[in-house]
């Protein structure tokens, strides 16, 4: 038996204790939620939804890059409440992207909440999503210390 195999699911504990789900407001990203919910139920894991908003400045004005940012955040709060209503210990972390990009922001949250799994999509539909779920997922796969579970976009 290898060290990696002994690290998970021993002594009657679940495999995962805290699961991070990276969301950008797109449907594709949310395809990971049922999986997170199922794993949470199986293992008794906490679920932390993570959203990274990006700001842009032009002509002295600062706004979110994603024009629907307010709506997205409201939607994510509803999703979090919905998970809680289902008996899952869920929370929402919204960060503003700093130097180093969204992948670093997600990794920071993952470390802070001591998560042992990151669930992320492959490609979103929003302006943020294309950047977020394309390059950011790649970056997470290269740099994250925790396992990364990538949920594919719907085909067709």
């Amino acid at each position, binding site marked *: 038996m290898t060290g990696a195999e002994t690290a998970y699911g021993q002594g009657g504990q679940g495999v995962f204790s805290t699961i991070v789900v990276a969301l950008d407001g797109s449907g594709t990203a949310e395809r990971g939620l049922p999986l997170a919910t199922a794993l949470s139920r199986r293992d008794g894991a906490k679920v932390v939804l993570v959203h990274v908003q*990006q700001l*842009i*400045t*032009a*002509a*002295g*004005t600062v*706004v*979110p*890059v*994603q*024009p*629907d940012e307010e709506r997205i955040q409201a939607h994510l709060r509803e999703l979090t409440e919905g998970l809680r209503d289902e008996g899952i210990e869920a929370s929402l972390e919204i960060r503003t992207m700093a*130097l*180093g*990009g969204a992948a670093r922001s997600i990794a920071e949250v993952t470390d802070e909440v001591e998560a042992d799994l990151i669930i992320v999509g492959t490609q979103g*539909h*929003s*302006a*943020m999503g*294309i*950047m977020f779920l*394309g*390059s950011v997922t790649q970056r997470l796969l290269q740099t994250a210390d925790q396992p990364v579970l990538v949920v594919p976009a719907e085909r*067709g």
Partner: protein
Amino acid sequence: MFERILIGFDGTPASGDALSLGAHLAHRTGAQVTLAACFPHLGPLPPARAYILDEESEALSRTVRKLVPDLEFEIAALPGTSPSAGLADLASERAADLIVIGSTHRGAIGRVLPGSVGERLLRTSPVAVSVAPRDYASHGHADIGVIGVAYDGSPESRLALEKAAWLARRTDSRVRVISVIDLRGRAGELAELSKVASGQFDAEVERAGRSVPAEIEHDVLVLEGDPAVELAARGVELDLLLIGSSGHGPVGKVLLGSVSSEIMRTAPCPVVAVPRLAAASAMTREARAE
């Protein structure tokens, strides 16, 4: 001269700098604006998912309208991994005469329009290219008061001077003709010869100054030293600096020499690099093929 401005925009902070500069120039000159919505991470889409491009463009349009509410613009989506070729093609297609992009040196943040894209565009663009300095977006709309021209007597620098005069008339600004003679490392007889050359150079620069229409306020500055360093140092007094291409590349493309390239990286003011001839679609295709 600058009737339509093409702004490369992808939602990154560097593209916010480009939007600020492009919008500022458009407001001051009355130029029309095409916003090139760049999606370098978006590969070829199957027809069933082609709507994504429209949605992405619309989302960026809404963001731009929030940032610069009084800017009128058309939007063109540029998917694909070669924004430089896409911008050059689009400039020809829309008859734009200036492409504005963000700073080429922004580290991780500027990754969507990375340095290599800016450098390639500066080498191959058939029209003038301007790079907005880092954090230009934070300053709001500064006025255009002094337009500098880096003048070395080449045909490209004469064209830059013509464009500066045009801009000065449109924006009610003054023109500063700046020439830097590089005598570093020269001694003895060579220095004597250099002084003769320097005198001829001064005369040429004076002629250039006289070529600016009298109604446009202007002055002439002749300096000695490292041209890149001197021009960058003078940049703090300028609101815009126009430079010619090196002239050694294919006609009609902006081809920066080492001096111009250095100024682009270090100048504290926005820099416009002017190509030798007006845009030509054949040249754009050639640039794309490189």
